[in-house]
């Protein structure tokens, strides 16, 4: 079906269809997938959540959960062994000698009761080998580190230990499932460098699963874009990123936020998935969201065909789309309308919306046997936010940015210093909208709670709730639904609706989009900007992502280790960062341009 690679591939997936059952309903998670991984190549597997990318990784490892009663058609060959129908012993042999794995969360995939060295040398080698492997993955002082337990290491170091375990058996293929997602940007960059070095040294292949095109761009030789269990396109990384041939890839690329995203325009988004399952199963899986949909897309599944590309010398670039290449290219050039600007905020600006002076917060960890040292989360923070202003607070994990927000919200009492918030009070939108909405109350009840003190009467309250939901882009029926039945994006909308049903003096946003897919994140950010213009709200936006910070704030505040190290007008700080930490952050933002 596809052009044969000259060397026999490390892994070969052909005609793979995987059906998983959840609570009695069977879903095809992977549908007729063909894929090869050549020796020594890094294949980036990119897709949104639910695209089936992790399931494919688990299937290659022969580790699909029995609980979901996997049904497999087609074949998976790793190192010439059938991973679907092979004997248990044969599959174990492949896992031992040919496969290595790095999962997203090293804390849960490392054994907390075993020393790091023992885990590395559990299958192969001895302690000397463990020390050698640790230095190979770039852990300093490996002689000391083999003796520690996983909880004594930082997230980045834990992930390096995972990598050391993965390469301990000299595997021919490493499967890395979102290995950098839980890490700070600066650590992420280091880890990607390490993975590439490992590949260069050991000559193994890597299947790098990620939702982030920019991360794939940093490391992959080829990129495969997965949508609803089918390949949308696959080709050389540069080609896929610079000359995408599938409308889905175009959408993904456009909804990615970078330091170059136009600030004055509405952020490009993809159409949300609204169609029912039955409709989606026929034809091209993307047809319900595709802006270029044709009749044939609804009826027939497009085959992967070689895209007629300019440079024919590189590896073939395959696409599964009925549209002509020219039409897809046209889509990429399309521009968005300008963002709604808030009319000049001619409010009596004598009172700042938020005024924080000399703020200090100290956590005293309660501990039984050992008395832990107090943790200084905030050390003397001063911040004034004028009414109508949008301020982005940027910092890595542990910088104290969320603590600052929680103190302003009044959830956390400061150890020293004062906080003053405007009369209408502060409202907050949390990172994980799902856990911030009481699961057993309906959306309507959650919204009504904020209106209770106003004593508006039943009819007025209902109208107000309907209007708020409408403003936020949700149908009024949502009021009768409980949060667990909503999608991630819808939940974040409900959280926003609750925060803005009465306009607050300041809207505090704690990374509200970091758990969402790129396109959904852009939708939520658009919404916050619209709401800000409409309600003339002050917004304090906390994020670890400089690209997002740049879009959401007029002013930027950079925090690290509990202090503000730099603050200033957004454009100026991005163009000419004053503090070395800001420069590090800027340099670590992953860009599509590969750094090789």
């Amino acid at each position, binding site marked *: 079906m596809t052009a044969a690679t000259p060397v026999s591939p490390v892994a070969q997936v052909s005609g793979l269809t995987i059906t998983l059952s959840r609570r009695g309903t069977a879903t095809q998670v992977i549908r007729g997938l063909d894929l090869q991984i050549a020796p020594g190549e890094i294949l980036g597997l990119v897709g949104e959540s639910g695209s089936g990318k992790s399931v494919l990784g688990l299937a290659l490892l022969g580790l699909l959960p029995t609980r979901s009663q996997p049904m497999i*058609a087609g074949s998976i060959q790793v190192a010439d062994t059938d991973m679907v129908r092979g004997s248990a012993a044969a599959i174990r042999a492949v896992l031992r000698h040919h496969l290595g794995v790095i999962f997203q969360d090293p804390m849960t995939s490392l054994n907390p009761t075993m020393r790091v060295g023992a885990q590395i040398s559990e299958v192969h080698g001895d302690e000397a080998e463990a020390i050698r492997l640790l230095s190979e993955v770039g852990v300093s002082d490996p002689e000391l580190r083999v003796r520690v337990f996983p909880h004594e290491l930082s997230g980045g170091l834990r992930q390096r230990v995972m990598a050391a375990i993965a390469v301990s058996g000299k595997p021919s293929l490493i499967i890395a499932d979102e290995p950098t997602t839980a890490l700070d940007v600066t650590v992420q960059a280091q880890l990607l460098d390490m993975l590439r070095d490992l590949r260069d040294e050991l000559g193994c292949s890597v299947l790098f699963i990620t939702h982030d095109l920019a991360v794939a761009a940093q490391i992959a030789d080829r990129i495969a874009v997965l949508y609803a269990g089918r390949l949308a396109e696959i080709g050389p990384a540069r080609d896929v990123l610079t000359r995408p041939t599938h409308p889905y890839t175009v959408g993904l690329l456009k909804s990615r936020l970078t330091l170059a995203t136009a600030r004055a325009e509405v952020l490009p988004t993809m159409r949300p998935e609204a169609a029912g399952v039955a409709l989606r199963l026929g034809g091209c899986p993307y047809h319900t969201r595709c802006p270029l949909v044709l009749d044939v897309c609804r009826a027939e599944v497009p085959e992967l065909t070689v895209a007629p590309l300019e440079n024919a010398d590189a590896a073939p670039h395959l696409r599964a789309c009925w549209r002509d290449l020219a039409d897809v290219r046209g889509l990429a050039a399309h521009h968005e309308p300008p963002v709604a600007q808030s009319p000049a905020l001619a409010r009596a600006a004598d009172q700042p919306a938020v005024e924080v002076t000399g703020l200090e917060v100290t956590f005293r960890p309660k501990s039984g046997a050992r008395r832990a040292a107090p943790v200084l989360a905030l050390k003397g923070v001063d911040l004034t936010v004028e009414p109508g202003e949008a301020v982005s607070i940027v910092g890595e994990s542990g910088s104290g940015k969320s603590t600052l927000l929680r103190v302003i919200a009044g959830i956390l009492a400061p150890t020293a210093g004062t906080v003053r918030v405007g009369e209408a009070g502060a409202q907050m939108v949390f990172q994980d909208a799902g856990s911030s909405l009481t699961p057993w109350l309906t959306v309507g*009840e959650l919204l009504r709670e904020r209106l209770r003190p106003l004593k508006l009467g039943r009819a007025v309250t209902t109208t107000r709730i309907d209007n708020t939901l409408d403003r936020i882009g949700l149908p009024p029926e949502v009021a009768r639904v409980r949060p667990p039945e909503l999608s991630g994006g819808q939940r974040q909308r409900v959280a926003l609706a609750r925060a803005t049903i009465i306009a607050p003096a300041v809207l505090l946003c704690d990374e509200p989009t970091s758990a969402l897919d790129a396109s959904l994140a852009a939708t939520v950010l658009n919404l916050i900007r619209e709401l800000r213009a409409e309600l003339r709200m002050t917004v304090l936006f906390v994020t670890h992502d400089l690209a997002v910070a740049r879009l959401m704030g007029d002013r930027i505040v950079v925090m690290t280790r509990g202090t503000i190290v730099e603050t200033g007008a957004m454009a100026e700080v991005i163009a000419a960062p004053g503090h070395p930490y800001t420069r590090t952050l800027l340099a670590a933002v992953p860009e599509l341009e590969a750094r090789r």
Partner: protein
Amino acid sequence: MTITDDPILRRRFGRFGGGSGTGASTSVNYALVGLLVLVTLLAVFARVLSPDDPIQPIGDLNAPPGSPDHLLGTDAIGRDLLSRTLWGIQTSWFAALAVVASGLFIGGLIGVVAGVSGGLIDSLLMRFTDLFLALPGTLVAIAIAASLGANLTNTLIGISVVWWPYYARIVRGEVRSLAARPHVEAAKLAGVGWFRLVFRHILPGVVPTAIVAASLDIGNVVLLLAGLSFIGLGQAEPAPELGADTARALDQLLAQWWVPVVPGIAVLLLSLIANLGGDAIRTLLAGRR
């Protein structure tokens, strides 16, 4: 390309993969919960279902099970064992439910107050609870029942006094963990009052845990009640009671085994069904959350 779905064989993962959540075990669990409901119905309608008066001697002495008029036989003075057992089940089951309900109420109240207030009140209430947990519960229950006078009401009072600390602990722990969840923080921020916060945002989350704990506990109470009644801390003589009936007829064990064994088996089945049903409820609730 032909698509032939073949399921990955169970044997490969079977040893490690748990069987929970599959279709078959769900229906087994529903059946077990159905059994709980059945026992409760049996207890409610015991008086209608029993063929004879359980107190009046009406038949042959010591008739074996399977006799034409007496399905489970009769005892030493000719009372119908089926009727006595049914009445006994009614007493045992309702008494167990009452004890568990009182434990749930007292313990739940203390647990919620401790969990919500925290700080000094929490410490005081929990140390008080620890005090009760440190006492040998059964002995204290016996002592209370004996000092108040041996009858069923006093036995229930005795057990209830020592039965709540378990629930106080569970409820308090659950309240603490729910109160630390972001949705409670978000509700506070939304301006929700204290009362509403506790009753709408925290308590509904405690209910499933409390139900599971309570349903697993019914079997224990059935056994304890039977035990206390066996040693004479139950209803007085002619009243049908499972533990006491077993004790009184114990000397017939070799001659007419069915007289003591029938009520004994009833106790066994009651506590077994209560335990299995409780487990089933736990599994079903865990699957739903």
